[in-house]
């Protein structure tokens, strides 16, 4: 140690015994460790249990395992929906390489693979980072095709931060003619989520929005499984603690015949002419099952499983023909098809019999109104001296005025003791045949009940500042027009089909349905829809008279064009007048409702066009549909 020698530093000669503030150090040690100790007491002893719980949550993941959604088939087992995958490329900014150069190389690579410009990706990632969403997967390309998705999946392992997500998607291969029946699925609305989360729905799970998809949501969805796993910080599985497998959704076998549905759809399109909307219902008068139910125009329900349907959806909403509206479930004046109900009411009430005659020697009938003034009610032609069967056959308006409101100036009574009573009685029968209320068709849709007016209804609806007091009164004309399916009466094509079925099957009001069977995930039959029927308050002998009139109409009446060579068809035309709000002209809506074969009804067909004459436009279409049905469809 001699190296130090004389050159050693002077150790502070002024004081040979240092006495600096060493005590301050002791205080510092004690104070700092007290701070740490205090914090430990708070974290470990006071809040320890809470942290212990968070530690559990940290590693125990309880996940719902989504079930595979059930499929929907037509009556012959043709699939109408497929489950497919929707592939999305995701970037989690927090896992990207830190170094800007290698980041950009990764973007360039993705540009090659996905066709998304690298600069655009960079912008999106930067924006997400600035929002502080470093750990949230950011979608950069949606709806990838299968090949690209597979390629991305292969390389994603070597691209830090890049992942591929596969989400289930519904594909409807049948075409737009099935959209109104099937409906579509979509993300839950906040309101739906509030209800559905109690059934164990995940917030991002899709749910049926309309149609069969919505009506049979619980069956189609199946039951989700659960998996409870212990994971490490990377989210990698350590052990599976518990797992219950999901139970796949049920299959649904519709009563719809997809070939018939397509045939009817194309037939309506091809025969529309000037009409803008059309509808047709083909149903069984025996069970109530629907073979085809078509609404024109329609929409493509596949657009709702696109990642961003906004554009297409907007176009649909802006279409003046309202393609989203189911025309067969939308009420409109039924016109003369309603006469079959008026006939049933009059026969049952006895104010008219099969043989009651009326000489319609003029197409004008003068009524004396409540105010003493004459009113002129028109028929569409001079029918001559006719009985009830001929009146149905030729669709005489004047005969049915007589049958419903009576002809007071001739002392002929209507359905009731007075004008209002007549309307109430007719309304009772109309409701008995299913009008004025929803049919209960098992399609979640905007089915409207339509209107069967009554004096009470009129007083209620016509009140308010927009109406005069006399608008609220019920007049003779109200009852008369109601008797021929005009005025305030509205009904949907489906309601008219159900009413026709009740006449065809001898008096049973059926609840129509499109779902025939529910199948287990493995295809086993779980349940079959039991037809539900209710007796209408009209005797069979009276219904036989109406059937005879409808048969006569096809043989030699207004519905001649509905005839088929090999089958006895019965039917009733309807030509409902309306005033076009655009040009103020009086125009016609075309209706036809009928059944076949006459002696053993197997099918009811109701056809509607929003423009046209029933006998020349709707009747031939119905004949084609019946012909196709009897040849191709197994009831």
């Amino acid at each position, binding site marked *: 140690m001699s190296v*130090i020698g004389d050159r*050693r*530093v002077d150790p502070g000669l002024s*004081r040979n015994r240092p006495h600096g503030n060493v005590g301050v150090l002791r205080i510092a*040690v004690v104070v700092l460790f007290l701070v740490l100790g205090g914090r430990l007491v708070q974290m470990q002893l006071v*809040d320890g249990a809470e942290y212990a719980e968070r530690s559990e949550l940290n590693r125990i993941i309880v996940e719902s395992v989504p079930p595979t959604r059930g499929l929907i088939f037509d009556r012959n087992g043709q699939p109408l929906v497929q489950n497919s995958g929707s592939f999305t490329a995701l970037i989690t900014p927090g896992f990207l390489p830190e170094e800007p150069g290698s980041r950009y190389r990764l973007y360039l690579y993705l540009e090659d693979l996905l066709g998304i410009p690298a600069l655009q990706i960079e912008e999106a990632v930067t924006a997400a980072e600035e929002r502080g969403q470093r750990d949230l997967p950011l979608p950069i390309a949606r709806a990838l095709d299968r090949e690209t998705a597979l390629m991305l999946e292969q390389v994603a392992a070597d691209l830090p931060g890049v992942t591929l997500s596969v989400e289930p998607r519904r594909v409807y291969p049948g075409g737009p003619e099935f959209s109104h029946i099937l409906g579509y699925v979509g993300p839950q609305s906040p309101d739906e989520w509030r209800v559905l989360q109690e059934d164990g729905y995940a917030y991002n799970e899709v749910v049926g929005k309309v149609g069969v998809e919505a009506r049979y949501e619980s069956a189609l969805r199946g039951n989700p499984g659960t998996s409870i796993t*212990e994971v490490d910080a990377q989210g990698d599985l350590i052990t599976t603690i518990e797992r219950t497998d999901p139970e796949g959704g049920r299959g649904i076998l519709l009563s719809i015949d997809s070939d018939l549905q397509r045939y009817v759809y194309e037939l309506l399109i091809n025969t529309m002419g000037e009409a803008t909307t059309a509808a047709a219902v083909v149903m069984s008068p025996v069970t109530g099952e629907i073979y085809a139910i078509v609404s024109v125009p329609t929409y493509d329900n596949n657009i709702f499983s696109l990642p961003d349907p906004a554009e297409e959806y907007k176009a649909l909403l802006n279409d003046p023909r309202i393609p989203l509206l189911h025309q067969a479930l939308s009420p409109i004046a039924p016109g003369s098809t309603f006469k079959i109900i008026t006939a049933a009411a009059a026969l049952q009430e006895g104010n008219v019999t099969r043989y009651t005659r009326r000489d319609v020697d003029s197409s004008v009938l003068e009524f004396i109104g409540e105010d003493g003034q004459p009113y002129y009610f028109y028929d569409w032609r001079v029918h001559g001296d006719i009985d009830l069967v001929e009146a149905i056959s030729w669709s005489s308006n004047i005969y049915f005025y007589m049958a419903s409101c009576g002809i007071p100036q001739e002392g002929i009574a209507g359905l009731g003791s007075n004008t209002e009573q007549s309307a109430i009685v007719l309304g009772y029968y109309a409701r008995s045949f299913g009008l004025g209320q929803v049919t209960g068709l098992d399609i979640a849709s905007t089915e409207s009940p339509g209107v069967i007016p009554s004096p009470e209804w009129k007083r209620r609806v016509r009140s308010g500042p927009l109406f005069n007091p006399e608008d609220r009164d019920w007049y003779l004309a109200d009852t008369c027009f109601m008797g021929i399916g005009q005025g305030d009466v509205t009904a949907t094509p489906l309601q008219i089909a159900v009413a026709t079925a009740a006449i065809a099957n001898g008096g049973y009001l059926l609840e129509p349905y499109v779902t025939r069977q529910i199948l287990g995930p493995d295809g086993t039959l779980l349940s079959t829809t039991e037809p539900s029927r209710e007796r209408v308050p009209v005797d069979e002998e009276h219904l036989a008279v109406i059937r005879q009139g409808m048969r006569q109409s096809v043989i030699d009446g207004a519905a001649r064009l509905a005839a088929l060579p090999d089958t006895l068809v019965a039917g009733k035309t309807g030509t409902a007048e309306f005033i076009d709000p655009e040009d103020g002209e009086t125009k016609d809506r075309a209706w036809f409702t009928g059944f076949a074969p006459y002696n053993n009804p197997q099918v009811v067909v109701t056809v509607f066009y929003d423009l046209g004459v029933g006998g020349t436009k709707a009747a031939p279409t119905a004949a084609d549909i019946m012909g196709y049905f009897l040849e191709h469809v197994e009831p």
Partner: protein
Amino acid sequence: MSRFGVEGSLRAWDRFDAILALTALALVGYGLVLIYSGSLGSYDGPTASLENPVVRQGLFALIAIGAMFIISRFDYHVLLHYAWWLYGASILLLLVLIPIGQTDFGSTRWFALGPIQFQPSEFAKIATIVLLARFLSEQGGDARDLRVLGGSLAITAPVLLLVFIQPDLGTTIIFAAIWLGMVVVAGIQRRHMLFFGAVFLAVLPFLWTFTVADYQIERISVLFDAEEDPLDAGYNPIQSQIAVGSGQLLGKGLTNGEQTQLDFLKVKTKDFIFSVLGEELGFVGAMALFALFILLLMRGIRAAQIAGDIPGQLIAAGIVITILMQAYINIAVNLSIFPVTGLPLPFVSQGGSSLLTLFLGLGIIQSIVMRHRAYRQF
């Protein structure tokens, strides 16, 4: 000349502070146990292997203890004599670091010397302590004079700034604490203290805006330097809080902590080793660690108390302050009462160069303790 010779120090061996050395060894042992538990997930090789972090740390500890004994044999006045040279060398090393050092997540702190990482700031701590001790003692060991105070600040400021721009917030604070602690021991006047306190408080908002208002990345790397925090600035604090808190009174048992073993904790044999302790050994285990640290630091303060001369006292004080602040900041980070900054827990965290520096410091303290009578009799 015998008091500088080997005989002198031989006579002094009975004054060697065995309690100080054994406490340090106990801390290292505690650390080995925690490193073992913390490395179970990442190391699955044979027990007797140089790859095993426990074995490595044990070997480094042996080397470091050897170094302590060697240093304690030398008279600390050698260091004082070369104080300016040591100081100059550390400034140079810190400057050289700027262009050629290793950068991790935006922070440049160390050189790679083959397999060994060398952190110039570790070296600079000792050099600064020694130079401050020499400077203050040359001025009569008295910091009451504002000129002396200014001089000591001028010595500290360059290293402090060079560390700050690395950036290394934790070490910057340690340098500030070294300076403050040493001038306090040297008898700073209360009004000067107040003055510096006021200046510090006045400058703080500027520092804050400067670091926060700048681009986010810079903020993270300066304030919450991202070296140990690559995932996201909030991740590690949350996970270490959960780990420590969930340990409760007795802990989950060694190797049984889910936060530790399932990898929710990061750098768990180094910066977050205290969280491993908190989770697996609980409040009781933490109190045991605190007791060891307090004992060690009190023995260091004792050395300052009995030191034979002013530079000895100041050096001992500086080393005590370094260990205290490093332990405090590290544990405070683990308890989320301090922003994440890459400081190891002294004696406990895995890391050879840190261990070596710490035991060198203890060696210097031993040297001071062993010679306190010799200089007192001067």
